[in-house]
């Protein structure tokens, strides 16, 4: 029926970026299995998948009571030895029976949550996108955060992060463009009226919550999870760099202060921007669409240029003050 998930992204609590061996160690805390690492174009380490059993309500826009039983699939990852993500998702399907089966049934279907009764997809899509932590429904975000907390609490990290930053929350939901039997025609969740190209809607909300609605032309492929994590990572980078720049006090603080406040961005963030680095080709159009509007890389590059220009003019001014020329 649909896929839904939540990615939380934050700064790894360590003074510097951590090497591959340490990535393996902190992510390996979660289970005995192997941590997967890819090194190009940027180091990316991801924990083995974790399962969490759930039997609870799913959020629905109509406030209908929708019960889901199954397992949540989660993983934690570290990009560039610096940015930590916790990601959880489920595939929602209609239950074949009208009562809960034994756990072995659900454990054999990792990441699948079966819902009972009559359920409308748009109702679940809107409900999930709207729901906050303040209700009794399935909260994938807090599952994700649990795994992040496990990593952040590792004694191998020194907890001396170079700057403070808030975690961001990306809540996503994907439906297939292919009609399923019994699918009611109507407004597709990712499409805005008159919109062309791939179905994607990305909305910045309050309290660092972002919602993403996708319509997948090729059906519900697992690659969508990578795409959402990649988007969450770059959204966090952009958000964090914006905050650092805003707080640098350009124009009000002294030049030395501005430079000192911008320095952590240069040391720890600027090299991490690599959108769509590890994505399946079928998701390239989604990134391209986001690059057209709102223009992620455009905003990032402009901000990076401002950071570098500030540092350059401040350095020149300081040299002049030092009596060089």
């Amino acid at each position, binding site marked *: 029926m649909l896929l839904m998930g939540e990615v939380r992204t*934050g*700064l790894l*609590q360590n003074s510097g970026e951590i090497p591959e061996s340490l990535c393996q160690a902190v992510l390996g805390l979660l289970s005995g299995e192997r941590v997967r690492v890819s090194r190009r174009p940027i180091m990316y380490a991801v924990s083995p998948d974790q399962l969490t059993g759930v039997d609870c309500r799913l959020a629905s826009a109509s406030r209908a009571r929708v019960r889901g039983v199954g397992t949540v699939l989660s993983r934690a990852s570290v990009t560039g030895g610096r940015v930590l993500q916790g990601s959880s998702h489920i595939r929602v399907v209609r239950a074949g029976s009208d009562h809960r089966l034994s756990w072995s049934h659900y454990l054999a279907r990792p990441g699948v949550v079966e819902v009972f009764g009559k359920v409308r997809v748009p109702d679940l899509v809107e409900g999930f996108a709207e729901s906050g*932590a*303040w209700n009794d429904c399935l*909260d994938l*975000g*807090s599952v994700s*955060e649990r795994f992040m*907390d496990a990593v*952040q*609490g590792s004694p191998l*990290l*020194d*907890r*001396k*992060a170079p700057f*403070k*930053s*808030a*975690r961001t929350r990306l809540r996503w939901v994907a439906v297939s463009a292919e009609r399923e039997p019994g699918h009611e025609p109507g407004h597709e969740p990712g499409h805005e009226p008159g919109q062309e190209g791939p179905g994607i809607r990305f909305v910045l909300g309050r*309290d660092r919550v972002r919602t993403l609605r996708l319509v997948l032309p090729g059906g519900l492929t697992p690659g969508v999870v990578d795409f959402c994590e990649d988007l969450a990572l770059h959204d966090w980078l952009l958000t964090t760099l914006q905050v650092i720049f805003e*707080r640098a*006090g350009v124009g*009000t*603080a002294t030049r030395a202060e501005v430079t000192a406040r911008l320095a952590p961005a240069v040391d720890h963030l600027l090299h991490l921007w690599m959108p769509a680095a590890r994505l399946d080709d079928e998701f390239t159009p989604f990134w391209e669409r986001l690059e057209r509007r709102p223009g992620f890389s455009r905003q990032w590059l402009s901000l990076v240029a401002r950071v570098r220009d500030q540092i350059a003019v401040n350095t020149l001014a300081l040299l002049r003050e030092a009596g060089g020329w």
Partner: protein
Amino acid sequence: MLVFAISDKGGTGRSVTSSNIVYRRALQGSDVCYLDFDFGSPTAGAIFSVSSVARGTAQGGMHRYFEGRLADPHRIDVWVESDREGLRGKPPGAGQMVLFPGDEGGGEFSTVSEEMLRRCVRLFSRLEEEFDLCLVDLSAGRSFAAQMALAATARLPGVPFRWLVFHRWTRQHIIAAHGLVRGRQGLLAAGVEHGHDEENLADHIRFVRTAVLEPDAAELEGLRETQKAWLHECDRELRELARKYGVGRTAMLGKIPLDPVLQWREQLISDEDVLSSQIANAETVAAFDDLAKKIVDDSAWEAL
């Protein structure tokens, strides 16, 4: 950094002073948050002029978070949600100021379970990622909240913490403040039980004197000479007593002068209250400002 505000007796002005410290620190450019751990009588909403949570929140605050009934406690961006015009809108250069209110109709806990403690560790650890200063306002006296704070900080060796013990400048309060730290079941004894090193913990505790009447203050000009002499004598005796009980100058981080505005209107004191309406004293704001700087200044916290 985690800062715990505690007092032995009620009515010390602990909440209003620590709220003002948080406010000053935010104005100085740090990202700050204030956690209302006074589960029995949450009042922080009123101090920050957020009327919707004046007596705690109905949307799930600290108490319900510890009960395990929600994943994230209700958070309030004071710069957005305060009813006071002077507080709405973040001034340029200021940091975030977030309030985590208590629950309406909460209540003190009667025990600290392992699960509550884990939740506390998780909360402190997450907030430390985001904020430069997290001020935790504990209720007066020896509470389960204080026990939980000691136990949680013992499990977070990488997270810096400091304690502020608030007391009024009177004989009873000085003795009580001493007892709260060094007495039986005091902070040090309880801290050791939870795995803290006594000496190290003691180095992270400082005292803040509140409602202090300086014998030389300008307001006292009208007093008779005999009254002045008597006041000086009282002050000298109190200083002597404080020194004897380890609550003297070296262990003191700051003092807040007696200010009627703080007594009658328990709120944040803005610069406007001093400059335009002139209802508050400039010395009070200066004292808050000074405390807000010293709280994070390592040289003020060197080992005694």
